[in-house]
């Protein structure tokens, strides 16, 4: 029995089978199409249908976009050019962009001074780069510290001593925190670092700046906030609010987690009140009501008020996003930090926040993107953001009746900004992923 069986079991391969290509339908584009587009009848029908829809949409949009007219002085001239070339369908009149792009970007900022916002933008880029990309030299952080004051001076102009006098206040605060601790104790130093600079700004900064200007006048032409507009305005409000709302939001989130009753309740009330009311209401508050509360001699720039309101609004959202990140951390992380003897702020800064913020990145960036787009709401309180400017451009008889081209341009600019934020956040998430959990 075993003998007969051995014949069918024993086998020795004589020649090796060479490697072969898979069947033609099993590789490359064909395989991909079969698997992804035509895997079943339903799938095939849907594929064809979708292709038709895509074709239909493109067939309407492409000729309009690509065939657009770039060189004209008014909408009617655009139409004349189109009719003259014998095209019987609608085409875009991009000429409005070539004619008015500078207004969409800079508002009514004097055109001979465009270099100032551009330089401010470059400085901002240099300031933010070392914060966004850790590999850049740490020395660049000096630019980051000076940038806000420099950018402010470039944008609004006036005496150079004003921003310097204000910056000096921060210097005082920093000095009190660093050197005052032995004298005043930790809490005393922090309170001192807040109170002294505020008093300085309220009563001394103005006269000091003026006195310095009188002795050594250095300055550039002053530009009022009412001349700001377009993307410049959106970027100034958006960027300031983003930069300021992150630290504020983190503090609020920590406050909401705190065991200290007063701090906890204040944070909760602040967050809930700010979040519970639409941004547009806060903007009207900023434009109308704040003046009632402030002493009449303090004329507070409208743009500054808007920046403050948008910052507060965004920080409430950031606080909730960050709180989610804090809650997602296992309690063991807090205990690990505590058991090593780190104090509260060290534990937060070194252990808890780096992890919580990492978890919160998608939420934080969503909030930032939302905030940036919400800056268009300032049009309702009379600031000329890009949307407001598109109205202003239409008010000119030459461009009366033009909508799509402007909106597409505005949309594209916003998209570039928001998309890069989103891309950066995804890059950051990948970079911070240390393969845990």
């Amino acid at each position, binding site marked *: 029995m075993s003998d007969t069986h051995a014949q069918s079991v024993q086998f020795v391969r004589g020649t090796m089978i060479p490697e072969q290509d898979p069947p033609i339908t099993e590789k490359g584009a064909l395989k991909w199409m079969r698997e992804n587009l035509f895997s079943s009848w339903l799938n095939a029908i849907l594929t064809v249908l979708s292709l038709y829809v895509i074709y239909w949409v493109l067939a309407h949009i492409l000729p309009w976009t690509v065939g657009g007219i770039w060189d004209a002085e008014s909408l009617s001239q655009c139409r004349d050019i189109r009719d003259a070339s014998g095209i019987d369908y609608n085409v875009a009149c991009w000429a409005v962009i070539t004619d008015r792009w500078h207004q969409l970007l800079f508002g009514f900022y004097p055109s001979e001074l465009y270099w100032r916002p551009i330089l401010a933008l470059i400085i901002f880029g240099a300031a933010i780069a070392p914060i966004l990309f850790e590999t850049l030299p740490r020395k660049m952080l000096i630019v980051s510290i000076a940038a806000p004051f420099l950018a402010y001076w470039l944008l609004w102009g006036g005496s150079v001593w004003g921003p310097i006098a204000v910056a000096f206040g921060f210097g005082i605060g920093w000095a009190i925190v660093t050197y005052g601790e032995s004298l005043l104790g930790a809490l005393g130093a922090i309170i001192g670092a807040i109170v002294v600079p505020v008093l300085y700004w309220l009563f001394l900064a103005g006269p000091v700046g003026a006195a310095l200007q009188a002795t050594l006048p250095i300055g550039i032409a002053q530009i009022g906030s009412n001349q700001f507009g377009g993307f410049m305005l959106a970027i100034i409000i958006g960027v300031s609010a983003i930069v300021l709302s992150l630290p504020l939001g983190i503090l609020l989130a920590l406050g909401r987690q705190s065991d200290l009753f007063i701090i906890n309740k204040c944070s909760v009330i602040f967050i809930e009140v700010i979040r519970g009311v639409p941004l547009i209401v806060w903007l009207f508050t900023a434009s109308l009501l704040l003046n009632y509360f402030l002493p009449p001699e303090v004329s507070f720039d409208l743009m500054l008020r808007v920046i403050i309101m948008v910052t507060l609004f965004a920080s409430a959202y950031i606080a909730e996003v960050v709180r989610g990140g804090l809650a997602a951390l296992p309690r063991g*992380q807090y205990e690990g*930090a505590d058991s*090593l*003897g780190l*104090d509260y702020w060290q534990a937060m800064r070194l252990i808890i926040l780096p992890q919580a913020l990492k978890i919160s990145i998608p939420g934080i960036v969503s909030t930032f993107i939302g905030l940036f787009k919400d800056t268009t709401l300032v049009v309702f309180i009379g600031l000329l953001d890009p949307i407001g400017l598109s109205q202003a451009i239409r008010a000119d008889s030459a461009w009366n009746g033009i909508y799509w081209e402007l909106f597409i341009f505005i949309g594209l600019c916003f998209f570039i900004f928001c998309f890069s934020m989103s891309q950066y956040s995804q890059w950051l998430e990948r970079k*911070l992923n*240390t*393969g845990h*959990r």
Partner: protein
Amino acid sequence: MTETSPYATDHVVDRSHMKVSDEVAIEINNMNKWFGTFHVLRDIDLTVYRGERIVICGPSGSGKSTLIRCVNALEEHQQGKIVVDGTELSNDLKNIDKIRSEVGMCFQHFNLFPHLTILENCTLAPIWVRKTPKREAEETAMHFLKKVKIPEQADKYPGQLSGGQQQRVAIARSLCMRPRIMLFDEPTSALDPEMIKEVLDTMIELAEEGMTMLCVTHEMGFARQVANRVIFMDAGQIVEQNEPEPFFTNPQSERTKLFLSQILGH
């Protein structure tokens, strides 16, 4: 499980340095703790001398973790007195941070910081709490990582290490603060059998060097080898304490007998 744990080390424990001095390391007096209205710890009295190795065991929920977490103020006690290294635990944050930096703690789930490398995990507290220069802190860290036998993992992240390796890093991280007392809360109970041995070996080595240790563990082999006192807790109270030999061979209380018969599988 037999009477000696299968994970007991092969090497003979050297007891020459394991001298217990008269100096008091931890003194707990009449301590009571409540979680809300639930009375977790009741009238705890315990004096730990420098150089002592104490093993705490008891059924789940008996308050073992809570007890040793009270020692470095991870939990607050409501009544009684805890003195660690001559400093009384009070609400003063400065005192608490000082005690925590003198008392090392290892957790069941390691609690390493996943966003920092092993080396950074070990140098963080020395640099920020002790203000040790970075270079020196790194040297110390490498010294202790060698001691727990994983210096080659220094640049990895905790997520890339096995459980046993992570627990040894956690021990090294505590040691970098040069603590005078070490607390262990079930350091091996989240680990696979073969990893338990490597962690226990590390702990035995520590004991041999004379570290004051307070361990919550169910590794009875470890208790026999290195402990000089075993404490049995039940329902928030210390039910029995004795030297390991009499504790295991001749337990006095019925509860202890029942517990030991369950855990040792008699």
